[in-house]
């Protein structure tokens, strides 16, 4: 199709009479693209990649869920620790007042001992909150592995589209571009043997979903 003809036809598309012609041309283009993909052997390859996209979507959902849960966990623990911190602050001020008023009575009536016991308990609980806040940061590792897989998939798609673009370019342009280094042997998500975090355990039966299942499996093997 010549550029001038294309522009002319695009102008015709505005009128109702031109609609069947535009439809016919879209059909022709679709057929040409389909045939070209078949001839190039790329249709199946792209189809395979497209099949990976739902998995990529579930992986991204997994990242959103994990980061959301981590944020929620940290905020909850901070809230609890701050409440305990405020309580200890109030208790401390009360104890100072008792000691200033009557130090002997504060000791004799057990106020000091009760306060120290409370303090020790609160200290232990705050330490647990801090440990849980630290543990919540493990999302960085888990989501990082999943992100790496999604990036890998994006690279595969990009390589295949570049390859398609080069192979469908006019001959005079083809001589001016060389295929990308990775186009000769496109990356495949299958290249990675390890599967990383399980983003949806309900979709597979060959994975464990808890540490007790790991222990049971190892015990069944005699380990």
């Amino acid at each position, binding site marked *: 199709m010549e550029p001038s003809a294309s522009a002319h036809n695009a102008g015709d598309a505005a009128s109702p009479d031109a609609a069947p012609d535009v439809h016919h041309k879209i059909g022709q283009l679709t057929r040409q693209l389909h045939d070209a993909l078949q001839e190039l052997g790329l249709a199946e390859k792209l189809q395979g990649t497209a099949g990976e996209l739902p998995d990529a979507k579930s992986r991204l959902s997994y990242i959103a869920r994990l980061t959301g849960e981590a944020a929620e966990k940290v905020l909850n623990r901070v809230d609890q620790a701050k409440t305990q911190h405020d309580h200890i602050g109030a208790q401390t001020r009360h104890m100072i007042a008792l000691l200033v008023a009557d130090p002997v009575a504060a000791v004799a009536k057990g106020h000091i001992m009760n306060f120290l016991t409370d303090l020790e308990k609160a200290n232990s609980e705050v330490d647990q909150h801090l*440990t849980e806040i*630290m*543990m919540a*940061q*493990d*999302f*960085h*590792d*888990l989501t*990082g*592995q999943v992100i790496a897989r999604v990036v890998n998939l994006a690279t595969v798609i990009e390589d295949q589209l570049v390859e398609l673009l080069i192979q469908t370019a006019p001959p005079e342009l083809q001589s001016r571009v060389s295929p990308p280094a990775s186009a000769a042997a496109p990356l495949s998500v299958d290249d990675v043997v*390890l*599967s*990383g*975090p*399980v983003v949806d*355990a309900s979709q597979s039966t*060959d*994975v*464990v*979903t*808890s*540490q007790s299942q*790991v222990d049971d*499996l*190892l015990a069944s*093997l005699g*380990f």
Partner: protein
Amino acid sequence: MANPRFLVVDDFSTMRRIVRNLLKESGFADADEAEDGVVALQKLRASNFDFVVSDINMPNMNGFQLLAEIKKDEKLKHIPVLMVTAEARKEDIVLAAQQGAAGYIVKPFTKATLEDKVIHILKKAGLA
């Protein structure tokens, strides 16, 4: 052994810090770290360690390869290796056990799980 020395191997610095902090809270403060199997092997061969806590999915040399290298090295094969990983496939767990891993923990895990496994393995190895 009163104070076993740990090597924590993981490509994510966050996870290395978490594991080291948890070990410290459990009373095991003597720990070094490595970002992959290659660095881990170098450190294991250059210094003395009593326990390895290793991820599996790492660049350069993964946890399975590290485990295999440790188990075929006469000077290192006695060191218990605890796998701590996001790999939850049963075949990976079985493979780790067959290759000589002392234990297997799936991420995410709790402080209690890590502590229990480490103490159990240390006792089994006569190190505690």
